[in-house]
């Protein structure tokens, strides 16, 4: 499928607002998979990886950042050579963390030899950190947290794109 962006075109931005309920997360995973396959040159392998990245970021925002009854916002920004994903919470969660605390947590958990003992903790530091080129935290004026990740399409990924384009199971998104 043809990448639907010209080289000089503005990046395509898609924002989705979700209630703080894990029930809705499978839908955002399906959307991520279809969007990456159909609207970018990333391979099928990366489409599945972004699915996990989005899932982990949304789960963290729901568990820590936004209390029940509030929302989280997921934004996809599609560049010619990259995809950016931004997840924002409202800062109303009981276990919320600010940007500084998140940076320290990532620094600690990505040190060589760090031992994960519990059930949790691998999503951000292993999956999100491992599969993105940029991972940035910032505090929002409303008290919420903004997590921005970016993955740049590299030559080795670009060559894999053919594999995804040949896949006949794609769902076309009319956006």
């Amino acid at each position: 499928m043809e990448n639907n962006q010209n080289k000089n075109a503005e990046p395509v931005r898609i924002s989705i607002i979700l209630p703080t309920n894990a029930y809705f997360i499978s839908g955002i995973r399906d959307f991520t998979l279809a969007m990456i396959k159909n609207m970018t040159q990333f391979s099928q392998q990366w489409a599945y990886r972004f699915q996990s990245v989005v899932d982990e970021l949304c789960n963290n925002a729901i568990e820590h950042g936004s209390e029940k009854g509030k929302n989280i916002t997921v934004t996809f920004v599609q560049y010619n050579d990259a995809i950016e994903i931004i997840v924002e919470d409202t800062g109303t969660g009981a276990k919320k963390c600010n940007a500084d605390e998140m940076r320290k947590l990532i620094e600690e958990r990505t040190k060589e030899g760090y031992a994960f003992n519990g059930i949790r903790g691998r999503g951000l530091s292993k999956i999100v950190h491992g599969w993105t080129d940029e991972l940035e935290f910032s505090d929002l004026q409303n008290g919420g947290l903004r997590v921005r990740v970016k993955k740049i399409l590299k030559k080795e990924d670009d060559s894999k794109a053919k594999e995804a384009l040949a896949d006949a199971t794609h769902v076309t998104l009319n956006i």
Partner: protein
Amino acid sequence: MSQITITTEDTQSTIAGRTVKIVHFTGQLDESNVDDRAKEIYAMITAVNGPLFLIFDFAGLEYMNSKSIGYLTDWYTKLSEKQGNIVIAQARPNILDILNVVGITQLIKSVASVEEAKVETNK
């Protein structure tokens, strides 16, 4: 909510005193269901006295999140304490990819078929 079906079958071991079960996963393991379904695996581990070997047949597993992987490592630890083990069979490429990035494939063996997994549990 994501759907996940977990079914279990017993299989024979060539080693006396060793219990081997095949656990088939079909669907998606995620935040909406993993806490509830993990209890079934813990119950299975607790119910067996002596070494228990679990073959996790992931042929039908479409998705697993980081918490599912956390549970996987915890089950592995609990089985190891009883001289048991876990072997993963038939995992799809996206599942193997996520297990790799988290580093679980260094801990838990993954093989292409259930038959190969049975061989592993008899070693």
